[in-house]
């Protein structure tokens, strides 16, 4: 039934509109309940679509429903249509399912904020935009959703608009994403020119006629969009700053759903990428480079949310690696498990931040394990899933991406090694954070600021319940697919995205074994340095220059500042000095005076006497008549 998908799409939009139009008539709490309810209805719609698809055969699982023709220009048409197929249904389930949990969590987290209603309206708008992105039946709608998630992300990062840093971060995210949107739009223009359509089916059917350079450019443009949205090298700098938004926003937009849209895009348009193998390799390489870089930077970050943000970047690197190698189902499966455990980590971190009156610096934390046992266990589950320890979710999904790399020649082995190194780093930085925050003795800051809220000091029911559900998902969510033994996700996605690599079972087992061992080594190393009371901690071996470079996030911000911002400012100053002041400011006054004089002269023509006007009209008509007759 296609109406399930429409219900899924429309209900968050309706909630956003109701909250916006309702204004004060809706209580703050009511806005939260309404948004949660609407996203949950969306989830129900997604489940209905899922059940419907299950009842069809494998070959008959792609349905398009068009509401109306949205754009018609000459021979080009695109409808407002949604596509329901295994891939979009999987994304719908993730977005609306994790989304409704996180929106529900926000009821507790945002309680007492001045502008709760605005927050929930934005959240509902985001869920709608993301669903539009994944359900869009053609590339135009995908781009529309793409732009709208960028907008919602901008609005939510800058939600606390009285903080200058939040506003700056929002602008940065928007500008970086605009670069990706632009390259993507250019790719779509090229597609329209070459194939005359943007419907997925038509494009994929006709792209065989494209020349080599055109297909490469199109794939590159799409990759640009994916890289910007998913915060991969070289457009990654906006994501850590985006942590200025409220924590549930980070969990939903900057961990679970929006930033993974790039992976979805690659998987969705994989026939194009398969025609451009060089670009595909580039995507995989960028993913590998990003996962290493983000893992290294995460080692030295001190803000709890930033550490998790860098780990998000790194995990999306794995997904890009998988999608770029052609292991689409593995990438999508990692996207799903990552949504579970990363949302869990962010929300558990949110409980910590909530209990410490907004403090995010892990150096000030310590010994929280005994004060917040529930949060500690949930965070531990999330961390183990992130590192990929058996039997938590990350183990099943990450390792099969690595196995896919082994099936791709020497280039694959380079990527494989990078991915394994990333696993070691993941274990290190994740458990550094875990031990510093929850282990050891209570720090002075914790003793002073830890406040026992209602209940057991770990936040209201809406927060603990949703975190518990996600912890359960992070615990069992990975068992859906264990690549060497059973693989329903791959089978499910097969009609849409057939993998082009098929790792043998020995590759799966080897990757799993090595990755598990390296993850454990990382955890043990972290434990050796940070798992002991603060007084007895040994100094961590460090190289000053490397540490400084990592703390400056490898100077990407500084480089972009130097390469783009400073020249732009210099050009603006020069134009102001040599063009604006002498040419425009000095002359504009004289131009104004001159025109006033001329106007004064012309105003004499206005006698105020009706008969002059009538005479003017009559004589002009007479002249026109004479001319007309004479010319004829």
């Amino acid at each position: 039934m296609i109406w399930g998908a429409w219900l899924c799409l429309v209900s968050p939009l309706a909630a956003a509109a109701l909250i916006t139009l309702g204004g004060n008539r809706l209580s703050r709490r009511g806005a939260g309940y309404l948004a949660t309810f609407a996203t949950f209805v969306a989830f129900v719609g997604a489940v209905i679509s899922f059940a419907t698809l299950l009842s069809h055969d494998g070959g008959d699982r792609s349905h398009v429903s068009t509401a109306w023709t949205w754009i018609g220009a000459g021979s080009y048409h695109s409808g407002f249509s949604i596509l329901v197929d295994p891939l979009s249904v999987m994304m719908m389930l993730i977005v609306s399912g994790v989304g409704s949990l996180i929106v529900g969590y926000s009821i507790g987290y945002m309680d007492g904020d001045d502008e709760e209603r605005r927050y929930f309206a934005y959240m509902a708008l985001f869920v709608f935009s993301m669903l539009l992105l994944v359900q869009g039946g053609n590339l135009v709608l995908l781009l529309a959703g793409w732009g709208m998630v960028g907008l919602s992300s901008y609005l939510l990062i800058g939600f606390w608009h009285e903080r200058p840093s939040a506003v700056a971060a929002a602008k940065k995210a928007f500008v970086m994403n605009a670069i990706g949107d632009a390259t993507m739009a250019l790719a779509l223009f090229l597609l329209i020119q070459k194939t005359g359509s943007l419907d997925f089916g038509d494009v994929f059917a006709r792209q065989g006629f494209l020349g080599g350079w055109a297909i490469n450019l199109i794939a590159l443009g799409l990759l640009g969009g994916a890289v910007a949205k998913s915060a991969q090298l070289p457009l990654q700098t906006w994501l850590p700053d985006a942590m200025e938004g409220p924590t549930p926003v980070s969990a939903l937009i900057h961990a679970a759903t929006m930033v993974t849209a790039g992976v979805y895009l690659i998987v969705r348009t994989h026939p194009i990428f398969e025609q451009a193998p060089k670009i595909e390799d580039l995507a995989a390489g960028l993913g590998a480079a990003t996962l290493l870089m983000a893992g290294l930077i995460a080692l030295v970050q001190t803000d709890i949310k930033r550490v998790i943000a860098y780990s998000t970047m790194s995990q999306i690197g794995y997904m890009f690696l998988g999608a770029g190698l052609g292991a689409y189902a593995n990438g999508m499966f990692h996207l799903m498990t990552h949504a579970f455990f990363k949302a869990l980590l962010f929300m558990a971190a949110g409980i910590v931040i909530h209990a410490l009156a907004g403090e995010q610096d892990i150096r000030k934390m310590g010994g929280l394990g005994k004060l917040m046992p529930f949060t500690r266990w949930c965070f531990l589950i999330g961390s183990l899933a992130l590192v990929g320890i058996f039997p938590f979710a990350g183990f099943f999904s990450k390792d099969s991406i690595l196995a896919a790399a082994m099936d791709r020649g020497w280039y694959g082995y380079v990527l494989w090694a990078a991915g394994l190194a990333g696993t070691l780093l993941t274990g290190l930085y994740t458990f550094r954070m875990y031990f510093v925050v929850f282990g050891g003795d209570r720090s002075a800051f914790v003793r002073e600021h830890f406040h026992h809220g209602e209940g057991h000091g770990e936040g209201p029911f809406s927060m603990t319940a949703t975190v518990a559900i996600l912890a359960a998902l992070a615990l069992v969510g990975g068992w859906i697919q264990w690549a060497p033994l059973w693989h329903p996700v791959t089978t499910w996605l097969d009609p849409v995205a057939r993998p082009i690599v098929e790792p043998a079972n020995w590759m799966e087992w080897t990757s799993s074994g090595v990755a598990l061992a390296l993850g454990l080594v990382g955890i043990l190393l972290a434990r050796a340095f940070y798992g002991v009371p603060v007084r007895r901690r040994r100094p961590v071996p460090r190289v000053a220059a490397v540490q400084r470079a990592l703390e400056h996030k490898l100077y990407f911000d500084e480089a972009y500042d130097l390469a783009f911002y400073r020249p732009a400012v210099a050009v603006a100053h020069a134009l102001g000095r040599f063009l604006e002041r002498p040419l425009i400011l000095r002359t504009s006054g004289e131009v104004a005076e001159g025109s006033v004089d001329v106007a004064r002269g012309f105003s004499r023509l206005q006698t105020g006497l009706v008969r002059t006007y009538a005479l003017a009209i009559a004589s002009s008509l007479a002249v026109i008549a004479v001319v007309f007759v004479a010319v004829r």
Partner: protein
Amino acid sequence: MALAMLGPEVSWYLGVAAFLFATGAFGVLIRRSPLIVLLSLEIMLNGGNLALIAFSRHYGHGDGQIFAISVMAVAASEVVVGLGLIVAMSRKRIALDVDKLNVLRG
């Protein structure tokens, strides 16, 4: 066509129409009293009407007559507005002289 044969040529009618129109226009341009200006306007309109009807007859076609009737309806409404304005002016004791109404002078 048979109708066109009876009576004078269409140019005669047009001549009278042009004369009426010119008379009206002249009146509008030189007279000061708003009442007379309105009256002259009516003469102009009726000059136009005459031309319409003359052509209608010349071509044996009813359209011009219908059009003339519409013009009369418009003229009637226009007179109502115009006379209303003049009454309002005299009530406010504004001199009935169009030359004195020159607020819009630049």
